[in-house]
């Protein structure tokens, strides 16, 4: 059953490659996107581990991940929205 760990390993490596974008990413939004890549990759790894380690309760962990992935992003965009406010963009904000 452990041979399922190989795909989990490769997806983990692809997620780690996203780490470079966090370190290098010029803008804050790039960094936030890479963090979301960690989230989606994490869900995939969890699903494979659920089969590899024969623990069906891991699917609940993946379910929580999937649900809450959007929250950090929403807080980031809503929270950093304020600094956009200061630069007095002409367009109307709420559309």
């Amino acid at each position, binding site marked *: *059953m*452990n*041979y399922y*760990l*190989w795909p*989990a*390993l490769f997806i*983990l*490596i692809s997620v*780690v490659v996203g*780490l470079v974008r*966090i*370190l290098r990413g*010029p*803008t*804050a*939004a790039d*960094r*936030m996107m*890479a*963090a979301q890549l*960690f*989230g989606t990759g*994490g869900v995939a*790894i*969890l699903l494979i*581990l659920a089969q590899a*380690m*024969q*623990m069906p*309760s*891991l699917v*609940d*962990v993946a*379910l*929580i*991940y999937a*649900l*809450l*992935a*959007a*929250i*950090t992003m*929403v*807080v*980031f965009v*809503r*929270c*950093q*929205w*304020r*600094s*956009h*406010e*200061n*630069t*007095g963009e002409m367009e109307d*904000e*709420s*559309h």
Partner: protein
Amino acid sequence: MENSLNLAAVTFDGVLALVLLVLAWQLLRSPNLFKAIVLFISFGLMLSLAWVRLKAVDIALAEAAIGAGLTGALFLTALDRLQRNNQKAGDSLISQPGKVIAGISVLALTCILGWTVWTLPPFSNQMLALVSSNMPISGVENPVTAVLLNFRGYDTLLEIGVLLLAAVGVLAVTPSAVMVADSAPSPILILLLRLLLPFIILVSGYILWIGKYAPGGAFQAGAVLAAGGILLATAAVRFNLSASKALPLATGIGLLIFLLVALATMMLRGNYLQYPVAQAGTLILVIEAAATLSIAAVLVLLFVGLKSDADCPVPGEDSKNFIFEEENTIK
């Protein structure tokens, strides 16, 4: 699956351990606070993979709910308020010799700890044997919930009290109790809320219920509910903390019910927090439901308390366009 040293497991854990160390190292080293926080969020996500590999699924559930939902939101809100006037994350104020001494002493501590870990005596299974022998009378099947709510119920009672203290602390520090969001939420955000919120509440109830048989329970369910609450709070345009009666009341409910049950058991059966075996399961569920509510309320209160300190933005100040400009991190 005993810890067989087959190649796939070793490489997976090796890579995961390396990722944890590199993330932690980069996160602690970076003077750019936003980058440090994003690295910390990714560190939390990778950490819950480590919990899964160590067969600690309850903790992975809690880490996922808190890491993905709460820590990022708390740090980003605090950062947004701290960096209003571009306060840079200055470097250390410690003199050069001080740094060397600190470095050597921490290194020595780590080596000593590493050596003790390496030479730990073989595992004595008394606690595990004790717990599994008493499982039938605990009223639940999941050993972690049994330990949390039954065998060490007093510890969890005090822990919910600690959460309440944190909420009181944050409220005491919040000058303006009115959280004013800066702009109307975009319709897409409202769509996200309409789609996700009922689902989050459903999953929170499911996690609470599953806690009796499989990994789950009050803390994980409370954290998931709190994450839903935070999603709601970020979309809200205005939230008056002092006017809202529900939130402060809900924070107390968990401790209150736990205390009532504890006193009731003391009255009926003579000793504190010893549930009658027949009703142990239902009593635990009642306590867990109340604890879920109060944990969720406390965590949402912490977030709203942090966010509502936000004084309104000073117009005209040329604070750089934070999201999309090249960050000039000082070296």
